[in-house]
């Protein structure tokens, strides 16, 4: 009787596993061919191979530097590869992903808040599943492997059993893949240059009383990103994003820095504590282009 049960259960289990693996594989395949997330957007919707600069970072990078404004002011070519809800290890992974696609850039702008540059932890980020469709690539697989815990294991083992990651992140992976079947050009809240902006929500005007905060660039990934840049003849430019409370004082380092921690001095240009709205973004992007010229940085890669 037990044998009959185990046989029935195995048949049922294998059928289930087979069907869900096919669906999961198809789901990842569709996403790999889409521009829904930044990882596949870079592969499928960014035809250029040679850039003057790229922006990597988290949501504050995504919403502070408008590459379209910078490009038009400086006549350069850039793309914003920042992803919300990520941290420095993910930025490193994005740079690896960029390079693995055979693309080149003269400058890599690592944009982050003053506190992120000093953050000494290196956690798996909430949105790291966005590289799941490239889970078979060594740098992505190694990336997932370096973390411990349930989520990291699910992401890592998905290269053999894709249903693990696709079911765990079903709302983030499976349903976007269905959307991508209908519209493969659909992007997840960013434009054709990778930028996104927060709306103006009519906050009352109030000047910010900045307190100073020293930035020592203690985050180990800054050096890792620098090393990867050096290896590929890329110059690293650290950009400190606007803060609604702190004026960052960077310690001297061996890379270029643009410090915009106090560039936006009115609360009305902020959407929330760490993100500027669309007006704040234009202020920063214009100031960024001007700083590039003032500091004598030559972004042009040709």
């Amino acid at each position: 009787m037990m044998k009959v049960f185990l046989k029935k259960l195995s048949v049922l289990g294998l059928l289930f596993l087979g069907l869900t693996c096919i669906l999961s594989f198809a789901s990842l395949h569709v996403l790999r061919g889409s521009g829904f997330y930044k990882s596949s957007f870079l592969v499928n919707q960014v035809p250029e191979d040679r850039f003057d600069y790229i922006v990597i970072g988290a949501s504050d990078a995504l919403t502070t530097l408008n590459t379209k404004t910078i490009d038009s002011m400086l006549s350069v070519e850039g793309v914003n590869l920042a992803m919300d809800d990520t941290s420095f290890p993910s930025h490193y992974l994005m740079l690896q992903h960029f390079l693995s696609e055979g693309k080149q850039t003269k400058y890599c702008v690592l944009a982050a808040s003053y506190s992120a540059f000093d953050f000494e932890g290196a956690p798996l980020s909430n949105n790291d599943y966005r590289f799941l469709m490239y889970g078979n690539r060594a740098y992505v697989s190694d990336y997932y492997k370096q973390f411990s815990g349930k989520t990291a294991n699910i992401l890592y083992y998905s290269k053999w059993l894709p249903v693990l990651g696709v079911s765990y992140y079903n709302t983030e992976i499976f349903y976007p893949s269905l959307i991508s079947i209908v519209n493969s050009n659909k992007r997840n809240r960013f434009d054709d240059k990778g930028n996104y902006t927060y709306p103006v929500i009519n906050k009352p005007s109030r000047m910010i009383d900045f307190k100073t905060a020293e930035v020592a660039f203690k985050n180990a990934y800054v050096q890792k990103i620098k090393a990867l840049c050096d290896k590929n003849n890329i110059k690293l430019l650290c950009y400190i994003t606007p803060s609604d409370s702190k004026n960052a004082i960077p310690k001297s380092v061996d890379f270029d820095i643009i410090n915009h921690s106090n560039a936006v001095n009115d609360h009305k240009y902020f959407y929330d504590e760490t993100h500027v709205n669309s007006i704040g973004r234009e202020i920063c992007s214009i100031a960024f282009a001007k700083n590039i010229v003032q500091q004598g940085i030559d972004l042009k890669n040709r």
Partner: protein
Amino acid sequence: MLFNSIDFAVFLPLVFLVYWCLQRHLKSQNTFLVLASYIFYGWWDWRFLSLILFSTVVDYTIGLRLKSQDGLKQRKALLWTSIIVNIGLLMFFKYFNFFVDSFVTAFTFFGVDIQARTLDIILPVGISFYTFQTLSYTIDVYKGKLKPTTDFIQFAAFVSFFPQLVAGPIERAKHLLPQFEIKRQFDSTYAMSGIYLIIWGLFKKMVIADNCAFFVNQIFENSAHFSSLELFLGAVLFGLQIYGDFSGYSDIAIGVARLFGFSLMVNFSFPYFSRNIAEFWRRWHISLSTWFRDYIYIPLGGSRGKRAYQIRNVLIVFLVSGFWHGANWTFIAWGAIHALLFLPLLIFKRNRTYVETFKINMSQVPRILLTFVVVTIAWVFFRADSIQHASNFILDMLSFNGITIDVFYKTAKSQLFALMILTSVLVMFWLEWSSVQKENKEVILSPYKAIFIAILITFMGVFKNPSDFIYFQF
């Protein structure tokens, strides 16, 4: 250990294999079940294992003493000892702070300012369930309906049987205890029916309940900001959430028990197809409602005697049932509302109208919908933080101040969740409707349907941040 956790996915096959390897040795099999059950419970908090053990020892000893004791006085004293110990534990862990707070509020209301201390008490998971289960044993032994067991391991296995330990079904000793006394034979068809029931329970929990929670939490936590229609739909979704959550747990428990050769009682029998409140209570949390019927309602006189006594008995049972669910006035109000909905049926002798007719005619659909709406409104008290919150919620809902349903489509995520809920609820009601029409007491899945449901769980279930089972807090 949660049924929808990786821990349990490892625990269950291991326990299953070892258990059936011990098939020839009943004593070893029962001992192993006790051990597995204690591990299952201790995974949450091992300190409270002592409470289960204490309750087990007390009721086992009292059962044996009742056997050897003929004097009515002594027997009564033994029965009351069991009641006081079990209800005392429940009162302390579950209701101590509620009583202290209520006394302070009452004194403050009358102008007397008193200082009272509440204690930082953790509610042991499942205490309401296993205390009722052990109590039923002692009461049945006292009444002579059941012979007390002389095997401590069997009794310990009955009290702590892990599939139903933390959230029921609340089994009667008469039904479950004898199953530990006989050798279990493995039956592949029966075990497969357990697997199908586990899949069905996981679907109700992980797809329906956990997806509904996405909107329910938003709407109940900021109810003042939503339109009347959104509030009503929020209440409907809570009704579906609690049904999916609790009946899902029961189905998994019954399914897991079947893997070990045990039969547990049906706890939910398609309650949202009830044609009146009386029928709802014959289909919802059956193990609890029949417990109250057998150990409170009937001893009080039941439906015998004068109409006034009948009404009193119904009121007592519903209020106690509400209070059993939690130490909050909202649960008592919920019980009272159900009593008020039930009483007209009792008075006009309509409370047993559908006892014999399980199958539903299409002409009865309006009654089903009406019952669903009143049950839904009552659920608001069950979910709300306070009576004030529930009252405001219902008043806003009935003020018809808007028919917008922005919450369900304001973001892509909301639209996705709304679509998943709609799809899964239609699947659930389709399968339940066909089961009712076939007069089945549970949804019986074919292998193909089981695979289909398992695929739905895979791609629609909540895996990342699943909610705890709601009934764990009771």
